[in-house]
């Protein structure tokens, strides 16, 4: 397929501008890096924004302890290759401290908000750069590029700062911070086209591989030691890939035979289901799951 990808130049230039604004305006920023595809794109953009210099921020990962091992391995290797500092803060530590209490069988996904806010407080970060995109989810579609969080880490979607031109307002008081989303205007397809254009390495589970799964609520749920099949469920081994990688307990793969970035792009163009709709159990709870999590400080 002969895609015109010049729109990627526009998106890239905008994102570089945003990253440099964070560096210019914020005293203690951090870049949230999970090893997932969106945050990999952020790292590439940071290279383009700041090399040959060092990144003006450390990388921060909030680890649920339930991530796919391929992704964690990749996260550590990529940070080492770049020679940039990586801080990892773990939901399990928050559980030990008692700041996260989960019911039996409850996913740790939403609890990341607690650990993230604890890390922001611990390091005194005034800006956290994330890879969220507005096309992902309808609450995210309302999100600013520089998005204010109050002293409790809360997002108040009804009282957001107007954001005009490219004149971002990152000003915060003590204990407050901003979340910054440099790839707000990118779609899933843009991300894959950019990964292809820049020849970025991604964790292996983004490519088609055989994996035991069960069919649950219209999704393909991965069968792992942590997420065994339930009674009566039939385990199948299918060729699948992940469109999004997150906590094992709530992230599902899709059926796929795509073994290359170009093939992923072709599948992305042809898909009839959204990225989160095909993959996330956490968004199926209610129409407003994401909005509620975001209000409480989620990514």
């Amino acid at each position, binding site marked *: 397929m002969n895609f015109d990808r010049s729109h990627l130049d526009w998106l890239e230039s905008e994102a570089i501008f945003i990253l440099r604004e964070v560096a*210019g305006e914020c005293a203690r920023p951090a870049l949230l890096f999970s090893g997932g595809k969106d945050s990999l794109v952020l790292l590439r953009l940071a290279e383009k924004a700041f090399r040959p210099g060092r990144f003006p921020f450390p990388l921060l990962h909030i680890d649920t302890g339930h991530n796919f091992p391929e992704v964690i391995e990749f996260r550590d290797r990529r940070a080492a290759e770049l020679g940039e500092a990586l801080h990892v803060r773990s939901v399990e530590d928050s559980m030990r401290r008692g700041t996260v209490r989960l019911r039996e069988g409850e996913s740790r996904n939403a609890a990341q908000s607690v650990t993230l806010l604890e890390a922001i407080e611990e390091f005194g970060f005034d800006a956290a750069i994330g890879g969220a995109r507005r096309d992902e989810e*309808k609450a995210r579609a309302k999100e600013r590029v520089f998005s204010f969080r109050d002293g409790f880490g809360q997002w108040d979607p009804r009282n957001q700062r107007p954001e005009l031109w490219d004149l971002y307002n990152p000003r915060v008081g003590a204990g407050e911070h901003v979340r910054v989303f440099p790839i707000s205007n990118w779609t899933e397809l843009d991300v894959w086209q950019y990964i292809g254009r820049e020849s970025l390495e991604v964790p292996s589970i983004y490519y088609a591989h055989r994996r035991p799964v069960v069919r649950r609520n219209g999704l393909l749920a991965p069968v792992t030691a942590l997420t065994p099949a339930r009674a009566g469920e039939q385990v199948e081994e299918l060729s699948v890939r992940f469109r999004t990688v997150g906590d094992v307990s709530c992230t599902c793969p899709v059926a796929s035979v795509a073994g290359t970035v170009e093939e992923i792009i072709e599948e992305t163009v042809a898909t009839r289901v959204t990225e989160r709709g095909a993959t996330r159990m956490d968004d199926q709870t209610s129409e407003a799951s994401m909005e509620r999590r975001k209000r409480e400080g989620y990514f």
Partner: protein
Amino acid sequence: MDSNAVALAVAFKNDPLFFGGEPHAAKKQGTMGSPAEATPVSARLDHEGGNATSSVLRFITCGSVDDGKSTLIGRLLHDTQQILEDQLCAVAQASRKRGFDGADLSLLTDGLEAEREQGITIDVAYRYFATPRRKFIIADTPGHEQYTRNMATGASTAGAAVILADATKGLLPQGKRHLYIAHLLGIRDIVVAVNKMDLAGFEERAFEAVRAAFAAFAAPMRIPGLQFVPVSALGGDMVVERGARLPWYRGPTLLELLEGIEPAKAAAVRPLRFAVQLVQRAGGERRYLGRIASGAAHAGQEVIALASGRPSRIKAIHAHAGAREFARAGESVALTLADELDISRGDLIAAAADAPRASRELQATLVWLADAPLEARGRYLLKHTTRTVRAKLAAVNYVMDVEALEPRIGPQALAMNDIGHVSLELAQPVFADPYTEDRATGAFILIDAHSHHTVAAGMVR
């Protein structure tokens, strides 16, 4: 296609009709429910060329309450096949839950709980779609008067505006406000979509009446690209497909109009403006990191550095891939200069032959965005390009009566949603151009120094 999608597609096929169950819509729905019959998306996305500046069009949509704006956006996304099955299922379910007969496409665009509960749009939302011609970013802004600030927000980054009018109601006060704000924010291409043609019997007379009213109101603004198209968002006529019910209209569809809008050349032909974001030391040199705001930069170019006023030449332009001879408006690069100058964040590198003047007093148009009014005793920060300075109000010269397009002299404060002409005093100079000449160096925001809220959008006169 994966099995999940098939399951969802089947579920969708069994759903009640979208768009209130018109025959036209039923045909559409069949097409959508059977992806194999749809135009191959790969064909739609095969681009024919184009360049970096034309490949993305950002536009704003604005309409009064009940103009059918959300339905129009839903229709645009739907007929360009951007809406995926799980989104349609969610809308169908939500519509049933709310007791709608068909599916309410406005639910696709209303993202917040409060919006869905109250059936209104509160905040600007961004939507994305692509056709073979270009990528589109929609800033979807609410129509209520009290949310004018959201329209100014959406318009500030837009290259075009689509203003909804109701064919049965004509030009309302809201429509006047939308047209004026779009124009004020520097949008040159404005499409008035005269909607609900189905309720007006698809009659040319109804369309012409609305067109005449808008054209008369807009005449003093001299909008270069003011265009009109009759549509029925509900039935899909003249949005993406022509339909069969508007045979007297021979112009382009709404989508064709949007695909045909040329990006503003203004920024590209302006003299160089480069606001420094960061200074970096690399290999014994000082690199100035930033984005070309307007004009173009080339190696050897004579420039002047502001605030110092010192002249120099561009020694090299660096991008990640290596040194370049040339960079144009919109590109993020790093510059080195032939001379060691004292330059820091907030300074401006400009074409030596045509640099802006430094000013500590600004005449400006403000759109006031905050609950607390603009007052002489207020403490504000003014952010212009990458430079932030302290500012205070010297005078409110007049407040615009948007519906009459006439100035009202006398008020000495601006309230939320007021648009006024003010004089500001600054603690340090800024290097500004008139907004009508340069959107990048003519724009600023005011930030309340105490609350840190963004309280005004400003345009240098």
